[in-house]
């Protein structure tokens, strides 16, 4: 019996079981891939509670897992970055520039200004999503990526403080170990910031178990700033996590997805013995927010590739 370990992306989410249900329904929608019918078990690595005090309200729409919906429900998140370290400041400013957002410190704004006009502004303007929502989303991405990669100590407001990377890595490794106990192919399906976590664990955590396949969806792993922080384990010529991914890595993107859009292709950045082996797949989404996982999971090509990874 095959198993899928899902890991979600940025922004607040409904509770874990509801989120898993939403992903499964999106995947099965319209005569798609119904994992339950195929006898495939699944679990969701849930980490929204590390960043948010309470789960997002359940919204009874087909896009209830949509970050654009979640972000509209929340106040604009603070990009609460401790910029005491010059290297960290430069990193944050550089990434913020690529994501085309201002960040809330004078120093950082100056640093962004020094980089000149946003290189992705033109692309983003083609997406008819209100700019203030887009900006919030990019801020959320910036914060999450930063807090994870710099292992920031963070209290989401419940009086519990997490070392963000340690906590999330622990949850991911536990889920991977549970999946490894199943008899069939075990595939990791990750989205957005979840792709960074999945890759980090499969490439850089020694006791992570092997999986049969990896799918990254709407991934920011193409950004240099993220790759820099994944060193020394990551190298361009040998970035593929071959020690722990025995089968294929399928990377799915939409060119108008602002998270993946800056550098959507990963094959040239995560090579195996200098060879391009990551299967980059352009899945055309629709609507104003192309990063939405429920749209990606409705994609015909994505489903076909996932069937292949699961050997269905």
């Amino acid at each position, binding site marked *: 019996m095959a198993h899928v370990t899902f890991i979600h992306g940025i922004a607040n989410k409904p509770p874990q079981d509801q989120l898993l249900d939403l992903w499964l329904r999106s995947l099965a929608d*319209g005569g798609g891939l119904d994992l339950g019918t*195929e006898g495939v078990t699944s679990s969701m690595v849930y980490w929204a509670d590390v960043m948010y005090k309470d789960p997002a309200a359940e919204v009874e729409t087909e896009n209830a897992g949509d970050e654009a919906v979640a972000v509209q429900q929340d106040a604009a998140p603070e990009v609460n970055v401790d910029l005491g370290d010059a290297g960290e400041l430069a990193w944050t400013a550089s990434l913020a520039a690529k994501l085309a957002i201002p960040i809330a410190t004078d120093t950082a704004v100056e640093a962004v200004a020094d980089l000149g006009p946003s290189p992705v502004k033109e692309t983003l303007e083609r997406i008819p999503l209100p700019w203030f929502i887009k900006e919030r989303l990019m801020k959320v991405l910036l914060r999450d990526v930063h807090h994870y990669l710099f292992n920031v100590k963070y209290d989401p407001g419940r009086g519990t403080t997490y070392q963000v990377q340690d906590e999330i890595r622990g949850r991911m490794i536990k889920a991977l170990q549970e999946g490894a106990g199943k008899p069939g192919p075990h595939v990791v399906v990750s989205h957005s910031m979840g792709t960074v976590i999945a890759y980090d664990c499969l490439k850089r955590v020694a006791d992570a178990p092997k999986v049969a396949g990896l799918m990254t969806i709407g991934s920011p792993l193409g950004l240099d700033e993220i790759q820099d922080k994944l060193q020394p384990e990551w190298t361009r010529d040998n970035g593929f996590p071959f020690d722990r991914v025995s089968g294929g890595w399928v990377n799915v993107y939409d060119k108008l997805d602002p998270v993946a859009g800056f550098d959507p292709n990963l094959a040239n950045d995560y090579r195996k013995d200098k060879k391009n082996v990551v299967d980059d797949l352009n899945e055309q989404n629709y609507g104003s927010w192309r990063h939405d996982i429920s749209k990606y999971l409705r994609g015909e090509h994505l489903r076909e590739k996932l069937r292949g990874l699961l050997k269905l």
Partner: protein
Amino acid sequence: MSWDPQASLKAIETAAESFNQEEAERLSKDLVSGLEHGETIEAATARKILGALRRKGWFVLLEKVAEALCFTEQDDAQVRRQYAQALIDQGKIPAAIYVIESLITRTADDPAENAEARGLLGRIYKQLYVNAVNAGGSPNLALSHLNLQRAVDAYLSVYRSDPATHLWHGINAAALAARAARDGVALNNGPDPAAIARDILATLAAQEAKAPLYAWDLATGAEAHLALGDATNALLWIARYVQDKKDVDAFEIASTLRQLTEVWGLTLDKPPGAILLPLLQSQLLDRRGGSIVFDRDKLAELRQKTAEAAPALEKAIDAAPPPKNYEKVLGKEGVVTLSWYKLGLDRAKVVAKVLNPAGDGFGTGFLIRGGDLVPALGDEILLLTNAHVTSSDPAVRTKYGSLDPDDATIIFEAFEAAAGQEFKVKKLLWTSPPDELDASLLRIDPPAPSLQAYSLAKNLPLVDNIQKVYVIGHPGGRTLSISLNDNLLLDYDDRLVHYRAPTEGGSSGSPVFNQSWQLIGLHHAGGTSMQRLNGKEGTYAANEGIWIQRIIKALGEAEVVEQHHA
């Protein structure tokens, strides 16, 4: 046993959930006995118990429990209504009318309950009219017309007392007035259906400006559009109605289907029934507990109309002005479910009826591509059925009463390419006794017509209280119908699959499909006391099928190919 109405409620709900009528009967008997011996029960709990019995269609039990509540004066208006409902659904119409008329008198000071009671009286007369007229023959026209008049009067008086509130009564008055016009019945002071429909739609628009409409309001809106002759909007409102999977369950959809066919007279052969009926049927089957029985003579037409309905609905959705907040509604879920339903109807083609020498239905079987069972059998189409339906083993025939293969006749009621043909067994290629895999693989003569390939599941679905399986067969006694039931998957091991069963007996040898219409098994048994699987203690109500991959494995081990070539 101690008296605990809450525990009884829970037990009855569990019995209803698992279709365990035997247990529900025992629990109901205990309840009645307790009430008769002076025990009491809260009205709210009583109502829930009655509701659980009603939703499973256990009207005899509903009547007994409701009657005991009434006799012990533990009833309220809702209990009385449920009592009347039980009487109506068992055809005890005069008794139901007495109950309702007394309820109308008793609720004179309670406008809401009074309106409900008068509505129910309207429902009784409506049913009397449509039953008499739809059955054909020579109904007593004077009496039928009087019943129609009474129904319209009952609904109309409630509606007119407060048109903004009693929309359900209003739409029924309009539907019956329209029906009277179609049937050429002159009503005294009959209302103008179009005027009522316009008023109802205006009310709904005003309500929707404040809050989302309830599902039943959407069904009412659809009927209002029918009254105005606006088929497109009726379709769109029904498409919105079926999106609601929470309030609109199989019971609701079945009621809507009845209203559209029995009162509005919609039929498959012309619009809007040609689209609306397959749409509602597909949604019915998609819901838990949904079951469809259709006439074999109509199956080909239904398949064709279902195929045509999907693009027609899509077109209507695309052409519709997007109302606010309807993005999800216009998500074309209905179109997808229609396509899925069509696939299920296609699967019905492979189902065969196995007849005994007297020409009576003896069991079910189904066509399968031989190569899907044993690769070397290639594209030859074979028939798979139970060994307890037909077997070459004399010991099995003696013990289980199976037919000798030479005595079996096979017909296909839903397969146009085999219409009117009778097939015999040319050779029994392989059999496994009923206490093992209960299967017989047959070559039939003349050779079976080629068929559209369908896939076999490699894995069984998860037992997650969500996954359903579908059994297509000939339930006993209804030789002219094909029943398509959905069943919750309960459990399985490496040989057997258990699923919860609203089915009757007599479907032995039916194919069992998963939600993607892939074949997962061969149906062979069922009962209220099936032994649980995987070493679990106890029994439960379940149907049982043989896992198709286990049959494939046995066929491989049995070297059927050598026999095949022998």
